[in-house]
């Protein structure tokens, strides 16, 4: 019988088993068939029976055999036992059932006395004869309850049924041998019956499987040592099973067949592997049929978004977090209001935000702006908003400056004379950035120019070079009456336009010009009256005092764009009644009040009063304050005819000019229309300290020498320019260069020897060091134009000349002889010499 076949008939199986296991066992009866699996057909159902049918002899023999064979198989078959657990079991019972239902159930006890009676695991249908090995094992588990069972089951699953059969056979053989030996020692001792022996063998076989190694080894040793006594008694011969003989005599008729069959079987066994006749059959657990379920999800749309992370972008984002709350509030408020204002404000608050809406930056505010910008649906409004915005205005302002720079660049460069120093920060509404750029651009071009200048110096004598002139349409036709530099910003110039004569009175104009824009003034203050005096404040450089021909004094704040004066003296009851010929801001120690140096505005006018104006409250106060003034001094003439009072008496000599001593602000000089120059003190308002007589006509200008404080200069309508010394009442030097009125004189800020004088049609530069008789430079005006005012530029070698046509020309003094700075003593000597 082939191993792959089932064995329905136990006898047959037995036979087969007998044949098959011949090599393993000495007794053919040990073969047992197991109907569990096809391969397991060799399982020995009849095992017990076989054994039962064995004669006594064989048993004993068997026993010994067992002992011997135990050794051999135990070790080898341990694994096998693990593998094939299936073996044994109920076959005994089953066979019993099958063959002889009368067999009584036996109890199996293991070493410990535990009842390990194997329960029938499997009750196969004898017809089908198929069973699953797993079933067998699992049921085994239940019955035995040993630890190893679970592991065994694992093993079991991997068993190839075909091999199982093999193993089972082998196992059976070995295990039964060993097992039986194990149990044999015990059980035999206990139970000496044959059937029980067999069963025990079987059952113990199971036990053996479960318990495994430990008892087995012990048993085998013991077995070997011991002599097992088996007492067998013969019972009636009960025919349970009739197994036909499987042994055939060689001489019988069937011998050949049998032999052949045996041989065939051997061959078969050998050929089993790889033989086509042998079919491997596998059992498969039925898994549930898989079912595919498709689900379609929405298409995942992918978008690539790239951002260039820049340093400023990160900065903006971090800063935007702080600004978000602020601007959100404000923008919410503003969104309700005119939309025009929004972009500008947002713009101001967010210095870093980009201008491009479509840019990739992730700035929060940018996004907000985009959103807000979209709210503005009216494009026209938006563009108007742009035009009206302050930023735009400012940009225009800058642009104009830049244009000017481009146009006037060489001139401005010459003016600047390549200053290495940066221009000081102005307090005026000036563009600092602009000036800085100005510097950079000019430096380059100036270098070239300077080289030229140096080349020319040796050959060309000193001259005035006209750089440009401040003029515009507004100023055309007006007479420049006064010039004043701003004290803080040297680029800012105040020009007053107004006629001198009474008859020629036209409208007046006070303009603030900037060097950076020679074509249009920064500020324009118009008035119906002619402007006769202008001056910038020292302490508050944004304040410009303007004196009018009608005696009014107005103070403007040049920071603001408004044309309305901050303060006005027109309502003041003590205002001047005559034209204010000169204004000056003086910083004076106010000893009486105990304050610090306070600035006062001093004015002199034709009504004969020198008045002092004090702005009581803070200088930046917007409220109109009453100008309280106290008359510091009233000019009294020590003449015969006129006397001056503090009260407004017409018989006062109109004052034309004054000059405070540079060191001692208590002392000042005043020039009158009569031609006298009085030295006065602030402490005394009734008396003069000194009177300098020399001029025959009204003294238009008196000015102290900036280096030598004892020398002063005066000019008058009597065509003369006189240099005085403080101690000397008489003139020290006098110049009568032309037969025209000298409107203005000024000392050069660079040298104590140089001064300039403006005649009607000439501008003269005198250098006393070189000559006291002739001017160094003479510049003639165009016919019809009178030079009315002059002013030196402080840091540069330039001279500003105002004329009667409303132009303020900037001249550069070129090729001036190098002058020594110290001139205090020298000039006096020079004067004395001459």
């Amino acid at each position, binding site marked *: 019988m082939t191993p792959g076949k089932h064995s329905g008939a136990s006898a047959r199986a037995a036979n087969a088993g007998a044949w098959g296991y011949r090599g393993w066992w000495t007794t053919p009866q040990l073969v047992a068939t197991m109907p569990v699996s096809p391969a397991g057909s060799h399982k020995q159902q009849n095992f017990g029976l076989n054994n039962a049918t064995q004669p006594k002899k064989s048993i004993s023999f068997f026993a010994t055999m067992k002992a011997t064979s135990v050794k051999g198989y135990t070790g080898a078959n341990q694994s096998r036992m693990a593998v094939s657990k299936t073996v044994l079991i109920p076959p005994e019972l089953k066979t019993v059932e099958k063959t002889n239902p009368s067999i009584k159930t036996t109890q199996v006890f293991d070493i410990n006395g535990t009842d390990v009676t194997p329960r029938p695991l499997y009750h196969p249908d004898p017809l089908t004869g198929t069973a699953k090995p797993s079933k067998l094992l699992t049921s085994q588990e239940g019955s035995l309850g040993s630890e190893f069972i679970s592991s065994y089951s694992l093993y079991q699953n991997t068993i190839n049924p075909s091999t199982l059969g093999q193993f089972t056979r082998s196992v059976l053989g070995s295990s039964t041998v060993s097992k039986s030996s194990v149990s044999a020692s015990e059980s035999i001792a206990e139970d000496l019956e044959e059937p029980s022996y067999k069963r025990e063998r079987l059952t113990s076989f199971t036990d053996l499987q479960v318990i495994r190694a430990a008892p087995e080894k012990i048993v085998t040793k013991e077995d070997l040592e011991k002599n097992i006594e088996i007492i067998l008694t013969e019972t009636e011969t009960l025919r349970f099973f009739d197994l036909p003989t499987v042994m055939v005599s060689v001489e019988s008729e069937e011998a050949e067949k049998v032999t052949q069959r045996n041989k065939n079987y051997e061959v078969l066994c050998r050929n089993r592997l790889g033989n086509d006749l042998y079919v491997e059959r596998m059992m498969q657990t039925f898994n549930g049929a898989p079912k595919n379920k498709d689900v379609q999800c929405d298409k995942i749309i992918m978008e690539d978004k790239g951002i260039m992370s*820049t*340093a400023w972008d990160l*900065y903006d984002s971090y800063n935007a977090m702080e600004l978000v709350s602020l601007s959100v509030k404000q923008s919410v408020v503003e969104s309700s209001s005119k939309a025009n204002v929004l972009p500008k404000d947002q713009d101001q608050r967010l210095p870093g935000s980009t201008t491009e*809406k479509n840019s990739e930056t992730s700035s929060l505010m940018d996004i907000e702006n985009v959103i807000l910008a979209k709210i503005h649906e009216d494009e026209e409004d938006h*563009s108007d908003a742009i035009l009206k915005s302050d930023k*735009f205005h400012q940009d225009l302002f800058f642009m*104009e400056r830049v244009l000017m720079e481009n146009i006037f660049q*060489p001139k401005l460069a010459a003016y600047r004379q390549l200053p290495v120093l940066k221009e000081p920060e102005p307090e005026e509404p000036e563009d600092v950035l602009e000036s800085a750029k100005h510097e950079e651009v000019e430096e380059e071009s100036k270098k070239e120019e300077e080289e030229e200048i140096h080349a020319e110096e040796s050959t060309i004598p000193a001259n005035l070079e006209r750089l440009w002139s401040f003029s515009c349409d507004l100023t055309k036709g007006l007479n420049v009456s006064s010039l004043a530099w701003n004290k803080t910003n040297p680029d800012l110039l105040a020009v007053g336009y107004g006629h001198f004569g009474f008859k020629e009175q036209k409208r007046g104009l006070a303009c603030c010009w900037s060097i950076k824009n020679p074509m249009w003034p920064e500020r324009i203050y118009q008035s119906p009256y002619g402007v006769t005096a202008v001056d910038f404040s020292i302490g508050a450089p944004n304040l410009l005092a303007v004196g009018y021909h009608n005696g009014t004094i107005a103070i403007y704040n040049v920071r603001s*764009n408004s044309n309305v004066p901050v303060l006005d003296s027109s309502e003041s009851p003590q205002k001047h009644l005559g034209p204010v010929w000169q204004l000056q801001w003086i910083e004076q120690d106010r000893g009486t009040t105990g304050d610090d140096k306070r600035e006062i505005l001093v004015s002199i006018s034709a009504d004969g009063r020198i008045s002092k104006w004090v702005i009581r409250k803070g200088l930046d106060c917007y409220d109109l304050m009453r100008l309280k003034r106290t008359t510091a001094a009233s000019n009294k003439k020590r003449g015969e005819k006129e006397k001056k009072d503090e009260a407004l008496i017409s018989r006062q000599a109109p004052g034309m000019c004054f000059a405070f001593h540079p060191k001692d602000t208590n002392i000042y000089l005043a020039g009158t229309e009569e031609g006298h120059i009085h030295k006065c003190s602030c402490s005394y308002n009734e008396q003069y300290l000194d009177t300098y007589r020399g001029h025959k006509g009204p003294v238009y200008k008196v000015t102290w020498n900036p280096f030598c404080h004892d020398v002063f200069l005066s000019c008058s309508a009597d065509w003369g320019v006189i240099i005085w010394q403080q101690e000397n009442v008489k003139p020290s030097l006098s110049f009568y260069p032309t037969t025209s009125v000298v409107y203005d004189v000024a000392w050069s800020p660079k040298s104590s020897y140089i001064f300039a004088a403006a005649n009607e049609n000439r501008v003269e530069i005198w250098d006393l060091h070189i000559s006291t008789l002739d001017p160094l430079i003479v510049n003639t005006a165009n016919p019809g134009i009178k030079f009315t005012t002059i002013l030196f530029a402080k840091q540069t070698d330039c001279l500003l000349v105002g004329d009667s046509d409303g132009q303020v020309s900037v001249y550069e003094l070129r090729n001036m002889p190098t002058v020594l700075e110290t001139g205090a003593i020298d000039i006096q000597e020079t004067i004395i010499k001459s």
Partner: protein
Amino acid sequence: MTPVEETLKRIQSHKGVIGTMVVNAEGIPIRTTLDNSTTVQYAGLLHHLTMKAKSTVRDIDPQNDLTFLRIRSKKHEIMVAPDKEYLLIVIQNPCE
């Protein structure tokens, strides 16, 4: 006239000024003295350049910002005052 208008007019009438343009952020001219196509071309090109310049300035120091841009070429000088909402462009031919 508003001071803005006055200033703008003055700029336009300055010596050497070839053209003055004010364009908004989208490149649409608000005020221009040149023809539309030129204006749009200038606006578009200068916009990118301004962006780049601004990015450069701010990359170096995020607290800084671009206020003015001048491009000097052989023939003339282009001056750009950038802002968030607009670009003020003036092309001048400085007489030298």
